[in-house]
């Protein structure tokens, strides 16, 4: 078990910068999820932690030790790959013990670790089978088992669930969470799936285009996204954004209004009259009614019924679509004009550069 410290890490391929000045501290035993759209550099960062790719600049410390020049096996890490990467010509037992042979673990100890991991992952029956005779979920468990027997200080997972079907993904997710509780080891977990990120993480690192956008606990990201990117990325369906302008500044309060919705009161801060803003409201925070600090009008275009709730797609007068979640059985019929409102604490405001502006409920 160990902490992980990343300082000013850079990665360039030729002229393209894939990672730009990454700084991150991960505490001992923490479960950190790297999340971001495809191609944002999550895998690259993980591979650099693993030592599979070299850095163009910056340092990585694992358990207080600078590991920049160490080979992957010397870093005290274990990695679980998206494709599982099991050795096809070895059975499950061999897959798990193979690496231990080369790191000088004695046969008896190897056997003990495999038995232990197999028990933990319910692999006892499968130890003599070959990867080709395993289902996707079983292969995934073997891949995790192969990581466990290394008894690493840090586990690295690269999208380990993305090749599984939906049901298996949920159950394996729970297993990984349990495993973390049991092993108490540091985990860095890459995914592009925000549900995985929200459910598994102690802390989430949201990445975009090779930069870290925000680091925080799952609910912090949900309730107080630091910028437009995080606001749009966390939450499903995505947050609705409305353009707005500062209409008046008076007595420390700014009045904000824009096409399609009525007025909103903010602490003025540095705002000046005419400043462009973006107002964000999550679909699940919009409710029918008119009395909130803000009200948005739209014509229902389409309703998706999910059972416990429905998503209504509404078109505003300026032609833009937005989404509202409607609880219960009653959904407005398409074509109906509705007014929706949200509580002040559920309204997010971002300035012209996309950064969050404190709203009345923010401390």
């Amino acid at each position, binding site marked *: 078990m160990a902490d992980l410290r990343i300082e000013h890490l850079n990665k360039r391929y030729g002229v393209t910068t894939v990672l730009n000045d990454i700084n991150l501290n991960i505490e001992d035993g923490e479960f950190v999820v790297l999340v971001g759209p495809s191609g944002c550099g999550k895998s690259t960062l993980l591979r650099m932690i693993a030592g599979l790719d070299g850095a163009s600049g910056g340092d990585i410390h694992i358990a207080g030790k600078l590991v920049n020049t160490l080979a992957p*096996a010397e870093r005290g890490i274990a990695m679980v790959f998206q494709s599982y990467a099991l050795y096809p010509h070895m059975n499950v037992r061999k897959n798990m013990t193979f690496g231990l042979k080369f790191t000088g673990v004695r046969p008896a100890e190897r056997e003990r670790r495999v038995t232990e991991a197999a028990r933990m992952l319910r692999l006892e029956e499968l130890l003599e089978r070959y990867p080709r005779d395993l289902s996707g979920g079983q292969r995934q468990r073997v891949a995790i088992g192969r990581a466990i027997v290394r008894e690493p200080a840090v586990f690295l997972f690269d999208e380990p669930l993305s090749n599984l079907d939906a049901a298996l993904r949920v159950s394996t997710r729970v297993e990984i969470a349990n495993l973390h509780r049991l092993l108490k080891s540091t985990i860095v977990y890459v995914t592009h799936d925000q549900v995985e990120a929200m459910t598994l993480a102690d802390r989430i690192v949201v990445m975009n285009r090779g930069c870290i956008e925000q680091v925080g606990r799952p609910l912090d990201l949900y309730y107080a996204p630091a910028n437009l990117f995080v606001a749009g990325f966390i939450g499903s369906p995505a947050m609705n954004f409305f353009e707005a302008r500062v209409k008046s500044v008076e007595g420390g309060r700014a009045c904000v209004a824009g096409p399609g919705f009525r007025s909103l009161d903010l602490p003025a801060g540095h705002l000046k009259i005419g400043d462009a803003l973006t107002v964000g409201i999550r679909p699940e925070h919009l409710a029918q009614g008119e009395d909130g600090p803000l009200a948005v009008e739209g014509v229902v275009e389409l309703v998706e019924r999910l059972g416990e709730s429905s998503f209504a797609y509404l078109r505003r007068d300026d032609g833009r679509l937005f989404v509202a979640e409607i609880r219960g059985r009653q959904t407005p019929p398409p074509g109906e004009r509705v007014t929706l409102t949200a509580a002040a604490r559920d309204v997010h405001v971002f300035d012209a550069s996309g950064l969050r502006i404190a709203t009345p409920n923010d401390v």
Partner: protein
Amino acid sequence: MPESVSNITAQMPRAKLAGLLLFFLGPAVAIYTLFSIYPLVATMALSTYTSDPSGGRHFVGLANFETLLGDALWSKPFWNAFSNNLIFFAVHMCVQNPIGIALAGLLSLPGLRLKGLYRTVMFLPTMLSVVIVGFSWNLILSPLWGVAAGALKAVGLGSLFAPWLGLESSALVTLALISVWQFVGIPMMLIYAALLNIPEELIDAARVDGLGHFRIFLHIKLPLVLPTISLVSVLTFVANFNAFDLIYSVKGALAGPNFATDILGTFFYRTFFGNQLQLGNPTMGSAVATVMFFIILVGLCLYLFLVQRRIRRYAF
């Protein structure tokens, strides 16, 4: 779910199905029959005849084979050619294929620069005409005007030089090595292609497991390209037992010195077409060709039943 092909064909009218088969299989069957099956059958048929001095031919059953394997006049050169052929094949298996595998392994190393250049350079001799290769090596190794003696002397190894192509003891192995030099690019390319098929993540997993490049090659890559290696061995076997051109272009049909480089191909050539004082004997030549065919057939069967079945192909 899409309907399976067998379902579709089962419901088809017979005439239509026949037309379909003829359309897709016809050309291949016709060409294969014309250029492979017919010559083979004709050769086998010819090997059961003998020609008399007047030019007539009559059926003699398996008498030609009895002569070939029983009459010392025939059987001695035949077995000489056969064992030379085995040595020729063994040199390829022990030198060409291991070097081909090693080169492929080196080419597949991550971060190797000028990969394309190495690959092309090592594959280049394969595209040269055997006649040119034979002629060049003849010149290079010539004790009179070859550069080999001088080159060895220049590095202080002059005493090692011998007229290798001219010595009974070394001519065959030298020729085999020339052939290895020319064709090592083929196993290299085939195995390199197979190595490229191994997913990157598998290699990464092995690196995380603490293996260096050499061990990754030995424990991961090599077992996974075993099917290709065995394929290469079969191709080598067939090519070696059909070899003829290199020996002919370097040593002529007599495969000197004193038949030391005579292999089945050259033996067949002399028998069928004749050479110098030896008259051509097409019926006897056909018998030699038929025996060659069966040697290769037996070799392939041994391979198919003993080796191929135990080799597993891995889907990644």
